[in-house]
């Protein structure tokens, strides 16, 4: 029995029961059947505790939402203090917190980005970006990457993989063109008609398992956009906020996108907020018709407080230094493990602390995820490529925690390999539980 003041909980089983009944039987059943029956209770730093008491190191971070850890002390302090003054605020009006955050975001942004539009989550921010591009170009077509993931709101879900749109009849092939990642010819072909409002691109497609852009690919896409009058939208929701070793992953490519979307980690893991940074050329609607997009929760003042503190922490030279150290230590450690399991652990995709681990099985990452779960590490498989495990250490890890993480990781990888190797004929068959 746990008392959380505004509600009480009988037991973990009770939570699972209520979740099936009132919340989401599909999800609840999937995790239970997969062997990752996680119900997060306590959380602090990079540790989460299941209701059963098991402690896990979090390298899922919800795509970077918990970049600075769970309940980061500075964030908690900032929000607590903020709550003495602020609430969600009135989105219609200019506000001190929104102005302060906008100025700070512009300060940190690639120099061509001059205005900030707020959303309450990544999907909404993507929709804002797409609408902005459509207004700026007076075109409708959106080009995105096959197997991309930009969220689940109306326009965003149509840019992503069919897996999330078809079921709701929300796919729109008439206006949304998908091209394979790293395929310049296909991209050129899609832009050639000259009717594309925008190309939207995750700097490294996350849900697809972090395949890395081929050398020169993103740069070439940007050039194609320029020559066709198409807006380049950089989805930096997972690659932003120092996770590649610089504030924005796109900056490492020397690209100044016309629009940049940030979210997840911007919240500090505490208060939802997302933001769209737009160039002056794209920002027309903000002057022509400032009320064209409205969001009750977008740019909530408490969210701005969290975001300002998050930017401050991410922007410290100490943080940049630590990310570089973590990327080096964890990268080397993973390569050492890979050398010991070369037939199983077949690839590492890494940019800073954004990592994808490839395993030699169509659902290899699910096996590894489950074994890691049993060995005290929480990492999620890539929905759109279940061979690949998303592996995302936070930017404030200590060397000791990294070492412990690597040891547990090897144990999980080893356990998964043993299971896959020794499972009966059909070891290449899908894991128990509804595979997607």
């Amino acid at each position, binding site marked *: 029995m746990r008392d959380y003041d505004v509600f009480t909980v009988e037991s973990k089983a009770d939570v699972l029961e209520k979740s099936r009944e009132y919340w989401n039987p599909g999800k609840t059943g999937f995790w239970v059947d997969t062997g990752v029956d996680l119900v997060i209770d306590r959380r602090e730093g990079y540790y989460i505790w299941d209701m059963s008491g098991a402690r896990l190191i979090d390298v899922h971070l919800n795509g970077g939402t918990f970049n600075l850890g769970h309940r980061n*002390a*500075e964030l908690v*302090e900032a929000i*607590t*203090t903020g709550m*003495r*003054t602020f609430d969600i605020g009135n989105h219609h009006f200019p506000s001190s917190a929104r102005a302060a955050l906008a*100025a700070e975001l512009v*300060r*940190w942004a690639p120099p061509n980005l001059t205005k900030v539009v707020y959303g309450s989550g990544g999907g909404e921010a993507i929709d804002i970006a797409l609408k902005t591009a459509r207004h700026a170009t007076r075109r409708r077509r959106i080009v995105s990457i096959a197997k991309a993931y930009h969220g689940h709101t109306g326009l965003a879900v149509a840019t992503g993989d069919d897996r999330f749109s078809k079921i709701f009849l929300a796919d729109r092939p008439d206006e949304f063109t998908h091209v394979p990642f790293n395929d310049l010819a296909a991209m050129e072909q899609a832009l050639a008609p000259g009717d594309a409002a925008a190309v939207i691109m995750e700097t490294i497609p996350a849900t697809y398992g972090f395949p*890395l*852009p*081929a*050398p020169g690919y993103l740069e070439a896409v940007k050039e194609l956009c320029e020559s066709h009058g198409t807006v380049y939208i950089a989805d930096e929701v997972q690659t932003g906020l120092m996770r*590649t*070793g*610089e*504030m*924005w992953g796109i*900056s*490492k490519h*020397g690209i100044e996108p016309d629009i940049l979307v940030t979210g997840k980690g911007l919240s500090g893991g505490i208060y939802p907020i997302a933001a769209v940074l737009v160039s002056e050329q794209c920002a027309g609607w903000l002057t022509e018709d400032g009320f064209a997009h409205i969001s009750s929760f977008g740019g909530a003042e408490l969210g701005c407080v969290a975001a300002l503190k998050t930017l*401050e*922490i991410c*922007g*410290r*030279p*100490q*943080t*940049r*230094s*630590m*990310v*570089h*150290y973590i*990327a*080096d*230590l964890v*990268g080397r450690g993973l390569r050492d493990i890979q050398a010991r399991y070369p037939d199983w652990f077949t690839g*590492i*995709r*890494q*940019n*800073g602390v954004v990592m994808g681990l490839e395993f030699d099985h169509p659902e290899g990452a699910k096996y590894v995820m489950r074994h890691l779960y049993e060995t005290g590490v929480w990492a999620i498989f890539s929905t759109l490529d279940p061979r690949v495990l998303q592996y995302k250490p936070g930017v*404030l890890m*200590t*060397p000791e925690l990294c070492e412990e993480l690597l040891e547990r990781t090897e144990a999980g990888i080893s356990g998964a390999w043993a299971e896959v190797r020794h499972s009966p004929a059909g070891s290449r068959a899908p894991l128990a539980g509804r595979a997607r």
Partner: protein
Amino acid sequence: MTGPRAGSRGRAGSPTAGRRGQQRNIRAASADLAAGPGGGTPIQGAVPGAEPAGDRGPAKTARAVHPSRHRARGRTAQAAGGQHPADRQATEPVHPGTSAIHAARQMLARAHWAAGAFAGYDRSSVLRITEAVARAAYAQASRYAEWAVKETGFGVAEHKALKNEACSLGLFQRYRDEDYVSPRTDPAAKILSVPRPAGVILALTPSTNPVCTVFFKVILALLTRNAIVVSPHPMAQECCTDAARLLAAAATDAGAPDGAIQVVEEPTVELVQALMADPVTDVIVATGGTAMVRAAYRSGNPALGVGPGNVPVLVDTTADLAAAAARIAESKAFDNSLLCTNESVLIALEPVADRLTRELARQRAVVLEADATARLRAYLFPDGMLNGEAIGQDATWIAKQAGIRVPPRTKVLITPFGLVLPEEPLAREKLCPVLGMVRARDAEAGIAAARAMVRIGGIGHSAAIHSSDPAVIMRFAERVPVLRMAVNAGNSTGSAGLDTNLAPSMTLGTGFAGGSSIGENLEPQHLVNWVRVAYNAANDVPFGDFTGLSPWGVRAGPVPPYPVASNLPAPDGGTRPAVQPTAPTRLGGAAPPAADRMREQLRALIIEELRQLGKV
């Protein structure tokens, strides 16, 4: 190479003029305190009510700050004062300055990463890095010496430059042939020893020997593969911060791990205490006033601290009087007595006292008549506390302030008195070129007087003797409870190892009785622990052959390497990353809200330090 931060000092003005301006600031600060409620014992020079604090905003401190910085802060304070009180309350953070403390603690986390990397470096890398840093420091010795004098308002630039040189290249040359890195074997004892650096050093540096102490501690850290976070004294914050940054860049350029050297930007008392207590700090090396050292020991982390000095110098009948006079005068005048090893009271044996006096006069060290001494005592110790204005100032200036006439170019003022007693303020540490003097009938009485000096203060610190009689010197060593003695040398430089063969050091441990965990001059070996791998002592258990086995290595390129995407070729070793970190400049010039609190703390800190000096 950039000069002092824009807006700090400018170029014009002689050092003396700068210091005079400095004194106005000190007195202005005093006026603030005298005028304010609960200001405590005022520092001499305060004219209560003469300069009301309100007129000029919160800008007056004992630290020389360019006037334009004062004005900027004043504006901010007034702007803040114009708010509605209820608004102020609502937006005032719960803990002003908390962000700065978190950022500083994160410096420790970064240092911890650096220390972990550094601990694996081999000796050739260590020497290469240390030499590069020592040379970079040496090249700026004079520049920092002048800056330190301008910023703190005291000392002698020419002498500070010598200290800077000694604590940079001098230090490196002294220790380059020592090995704090390689494993050692003792085949007879069958013990293998492998060095483990302490890890993260938090180094507190003083206002008296500001930049040379930064150089000193950084080089010691580099020689022993430790990461260091420097926390400078607020009175010397600008020159020390600049120096530490210079060394950090030189170190990284030479291959040191990123973050091996860092410096705290705005060291408030609260922030420094948080760093001292932080579990990531491995050892605190505290050079400064007693309050700071005690705080370091109280913090819960291991600490190496100093103690105050009150140096007796005995001249006996076997001394070479001319040489002794020259050495004593030079030692007192060296940096205007700012080194804690400066002589406090001269104990001259009666048979040679007059001749010594004449020799001293030749060295421009003037023995004052009784009434002059009385006036000087009153000036230096009004109400029994040391007059902060006089610290590190020229003898001629002090004489003028005290209303005493001395020959031009006098270097030292000598104040005779009868007995070394606690109620005689001139028997205490003076931190300026004023030397007390007593006469003793014989060596035994002289040694007793030296003991009396140390009863007043300076236990475990230092003493000096000019003699050629080993029996007297041995007796002196046995009877006077200090832990270093300069013989036939000035104590300022002698006990600091700058012209004796003691370990050259800006941090002198005063031993257990002196409240310090170390009883010698701090040197590199104090920052290294060793793991001792001891074989079974029985004769039938052989020792291992460790020839050619070294745990350390060299990594090519920067540490850590730049995080290039794994599908791109690795960058060349040593080249800078393609993208410079986005470090936007601050918009606007609003002073941080913590600035006012910091100034209050700075004032309190200075008062406390001066109180400690005056403590009986």
